[in-house]
């Protein structure tokens, strides 16, 4: 009795041979190639069925040319590589390669003759198992991506991208952890659990639910953005935007970047230009600011992510106000213009009302958090150049004279500084910024602007 192994993922998927996926109206976006087939734990990947039990509606695909096979060969699942056209032999048309993506979904109710067997076969590989409630089904045992490897259905939890993230891979979104063995090119995005990039984030966008490690740093255009839910580690950072809920560690310099750090910020090089918002300790080993006086701002004493949210709401409010003004002016020109502008006016007005409510709520949350400003401090064993601006909670100061080996903290609602930057009897924990000044560390003067 013949059996049919029905697949619920694309068995012919080949990440080395991708083409942009066509949308419903025939348009194509070159930034998305469907690089990975995400699966979740418990997802059915394949099901073995008696051919006679397959309901009506299933039809046979065009059968390939018959090949003589032995009985043993007939029972072995055909490796994908055997049936997949090699790049050298492919006719190179987009239509021929489109079969692997769009046509799979359209043809899920057609039997693929490659997967008809005389005896039951269960090609379950790593991280796959039989469904305890239905043993004829192969299910994924964890979240990951699914593919055929050496004739077995395999689920892998870690996605290794052994190339740059560019037009050859497209944007990538994965349920698990990602390691990129190349760069992330400008205009491309990467999203995963924990993300490690061995190359450079060069103008791309990286989002991680956990931490991010960029071994060659982050560089580039203002579009370079890293959003992480956990601790982030970069080798260096230049003209980028880093948003992390955990700690941020930069092994080299941080130049002209905007940092929003929910935990502590540690920079082993220099902090030059840009703004740094943190909710704990800020430690800069070599230098803050520079001789030319580029504006460098350090802000502590509140949750930077709440501050960022407020900033975004303010920008949204400005944008909607401008649109409201534009459409109001347009509506004044005549009845036809008024009719055309009416839905835009209504939408802008409603959005502004919602934004105002959100701003009130966000501001209440922001100001409540500022009461915890006392535990924050800036520690700089190196130099602090004139022109650096430091704010802790509501207190603000601008450095006038060059200082070395210094720390700044809040003292009686004003910013005070002391020497040395690090004392042996500091009770100091970088992860939460909790620290207590040493009794022996002198707390000097008020650094007034």
């Amino acid at each position, binding site marked *: 009795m013949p059996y049919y192994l029905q697949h619920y993922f694309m068995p012919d998927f080949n990440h080395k041979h991708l083409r942009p996926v066509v949308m419903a*109206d025939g348009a194509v976006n070159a930034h998305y190639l469907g690089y990975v087939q995400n699966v979740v734990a418990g997802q059915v990947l394949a099901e073995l069925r008696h051919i006679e039990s397959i309901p009506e509606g299933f039809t046979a695909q065009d059968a390939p040319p018959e090949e003589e096979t032995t009985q043993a060969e007939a029972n072995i699942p055909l490796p994908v590589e055997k049936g997949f056209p090699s790049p050298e032999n492919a006719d190179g048309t987009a239509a021929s390669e489109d079969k692997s993506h769009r046509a799979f979904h359209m043809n*899920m109710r057609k039997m693929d003759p490659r997967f008809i067997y005389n005896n039951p076969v269960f090609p379950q590989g790593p991280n796959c198992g039989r469904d305890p409630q239905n043993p004829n089904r192969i299910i994924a045992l964890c979240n990951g991506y699914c593919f055929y490897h050496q004739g077995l259905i395999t689920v892998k939890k870690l996605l290794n991208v052994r190339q740059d993230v560019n037009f050859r891979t497209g944007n990538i979104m994965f349920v698990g952890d990602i390691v990129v063995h190349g760069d992330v090119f400008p205009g491309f995005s990467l*999203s995963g659990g924990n993300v490690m990039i061995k190359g450079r984030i060069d103008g791309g966008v990286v989002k991680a639910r956990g931490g991010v490690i960029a071994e060659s740093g982050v560089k580039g255009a203002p579009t370079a953005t890293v959003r992480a839910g956990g601790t982030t580690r970069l080798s260096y950072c230049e003209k980028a935007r880093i948003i992390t809920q955990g700690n941020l560690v930069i092994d080299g310099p941080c130049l002209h970047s905007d940092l929003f750090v929910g935990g502590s910020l540690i920079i082993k090089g220099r902090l030059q230009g840009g703004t740094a918002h943190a909710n704990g300790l800020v430690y800069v080993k070599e230098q803050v600011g520079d001789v030319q006086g580029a504006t460098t701002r350090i802000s502590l004493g509140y949750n930077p992510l709440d501050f960022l949210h407020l900033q975004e709401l303010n920008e949204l409010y400005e944008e909607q106000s401008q649109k409201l003004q534009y459409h109001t002016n347009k509506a004044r020109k005549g009845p036809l213009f008024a009719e055309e502008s009416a839905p835009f006016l209504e939408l802008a007005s*409603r*959005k502004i009302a*919602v934004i105002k409510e959100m701003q009130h709520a966000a501001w209440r949350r922001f100001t409540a958090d500022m009461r915890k400003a006392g535990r924050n401090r800036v520690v700089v064993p190196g130099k602090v150049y004139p022109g650096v601006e430091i704010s802790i909670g509501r207190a603000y100061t601008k450095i006038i004279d060059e200082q070395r080996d210094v720390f700044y903290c809040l003292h009686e609602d004003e910013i005070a500084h002391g020497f040395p930057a690090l004392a042996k009897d500091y009770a100091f924990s970088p992860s939460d910024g909790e620290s207590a000044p040493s009794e022996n560390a002198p707390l000097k003067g008020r650094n007034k602007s």
Partner: protein
Amino acid sequence: MNPFAHKTFIGDFFDVLNSTDEEHQTDALFPSGCTKRREAVISILSGDFGIKNLPDLTVSLDALLTSLVRLIVLDLSQVTELCPNAVGTLINYQASVEGRGKRLILFRPSSAAAKTLAELNIAHMFEIRQTEQDLLLALPD
């Protein structure tokens, strides 16, 4: 077992969400099933999402994705069952939408849908909104 259904609406955004008028409903595969400006699509999914209706779900979702669309809202308030395969389909759809620079929002997931997303620990992969006010800001101008 609740039959699977997928309806896409044409019309003003909030009128669509509040209206129960059958005349306003169209078939899911209608090519211009979207708001008047064709930039936002609201799609109401209802019934059981099991392995058997996976091809229908995939084809229906693919039909929503056009070059003009900037926002796709999937209303899951009437979903009675969401199997892991359907969740996997939604994740890959989210990757497809986000990879093309568009936005996908899951709106008012039912308790069954929310429970499945939480059990699989992937709820944070989606943008989930519960009220119309939250959706309002997402609407393209």
